């Protein structure tokens, strides 16, 4: 069996290569995972990436992989890809425009898989986004339940509608008292 190739940091100079700012438009998905044509409830995820002292990480990148509104992975429909990628801005902010994913299987709460990259991160980190308006489903979700109760909140995006769009706030903390839950996924 060939052994795994080691990870290395994405470094500080990737955005012109990997994020839409620098790539030819429309070829690799950016932060728009779904557009108006996609079935489902349009949502906006407004995120922040913070370091160990709570300062913004301005040179990070967040990727999301999610199911469609019926909970199916990899079914690329008109206006929906399932994958998105966003660089962080000088305030550590990132935004995704997507649809609310459906539950993947009975008993699982709707969620998106997240990979976090930045200068200073030698391995990317996996986390998940759950949604605060799914309290009943979240309480039954096997992955959320496997996390110690005091840390579960780091995985739940807070509903906070703005501009007439169903919106969620999600903060990723790389370190500190409220360090996000990262998975050995």
């Amino acid at each position, binding site marked *: *069996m*060939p*052994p*795994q*190739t*080691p*990870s*290395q*940091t*994405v*470094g*500080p*100079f*990737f955005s*012109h*290569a*990997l994020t839409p700012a*620098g790539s030819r438009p429309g*070829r*690799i*998905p950016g932060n728009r995972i779904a557009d108006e044509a996609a079935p489902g409830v349009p949502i906006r995820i407004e995120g922040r990436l913070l*370091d*160990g002292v709570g*300062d913004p*990480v301005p040179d990070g990148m967040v*990727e999301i*992989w999610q*199911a469609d509104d019926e909970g*199916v*992975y*990899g*079914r690329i429909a008109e206006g929906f890809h*399932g994958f998105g990628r966003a660089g962080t801005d000088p305030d550590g902010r990132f935004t995704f425009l997507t649809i609310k994913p459906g539950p*993947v*299987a009975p008993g*699982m709460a709707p*969620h998106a*898989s997240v*990979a976090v*990259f*930045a*200068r*200073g*991160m*030698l*391995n*990317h980190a*996996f986390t*998940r986004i759950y949604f605060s308006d799914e309290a009943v489903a979240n309480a039954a979700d096997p*992955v959320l339940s*496997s996390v110690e109760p005091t840390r579960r909140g780091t995985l739940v995006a807070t509903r906070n509608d703005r501009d007439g769009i169903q919106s969620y706030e999600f903060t990723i903390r*790389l*370190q500190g008292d409220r*360090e*996000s*839950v*990262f*998975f*050995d*996924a």
Partner: protein
Amino acid sequence: MRAVERLATRDWSSHPTQHYPRYRSTELRAYKRRLVPLQPSLSELTGPVFGHVAVDASDSDLTRNAVRSGEVLGERIIVSGRVLDEGGRPVRETLVEVWQANSAGRYAHQADNHDAPLDPNFTGTGRALTDSEGRYRFTTIRPGAYPWRNHHNAWRPAHIHFSVFGTAFVQRLVTQMYFPGDPLLTLDPIFNSTSDLDARNRLVAKFSPDLTEPELALGFEFDIVLRGQAATPMES
């Protein structure tokens, strides 16, 4: 839908230590708590597919894909290799993205303020899809070493950054490829953040007479092994 059948955890003897004090930026950015185990579900075992809509052949020639007014400056090279899983099977039609400094050691990135010349015909970015044998191939120029402020007189060894997807979202890998015989390797904290010498050396490409093209370019072979195995097509 495509999914990976069997997935062991990441091999932490091959991967770097997240908090590695010699690489100063890890100080406030490395997670400190133990990773939470996660039984792989479809959320982990599936992943995005990027077809030929996302990539065309010209994207993989960095000596041509950003030319405005002349030839790219530097020593032309060919970098090719296979993306494999841990079972040794090719990972087909997966997206490989690369970015690198120019031959003077400067990135075409607004945050790079190293006082070395920019090359107007070179952005140092490219992408490719692997073929049916998992093989990718880039034509580019050999990147220069560049200074960074990690410690006194710190210089990064010449390297090309790689981003690879695989079939499952958790096969995702971002890494760097280095060049054989580089005296800066033993001094570089990022390269040395992987404690296992064999694992580190898997980041060093091999000079390849077979990939070398007469009167054109030296060739380097760089294989990438992703975690997991047995990518099996599944109907959905």
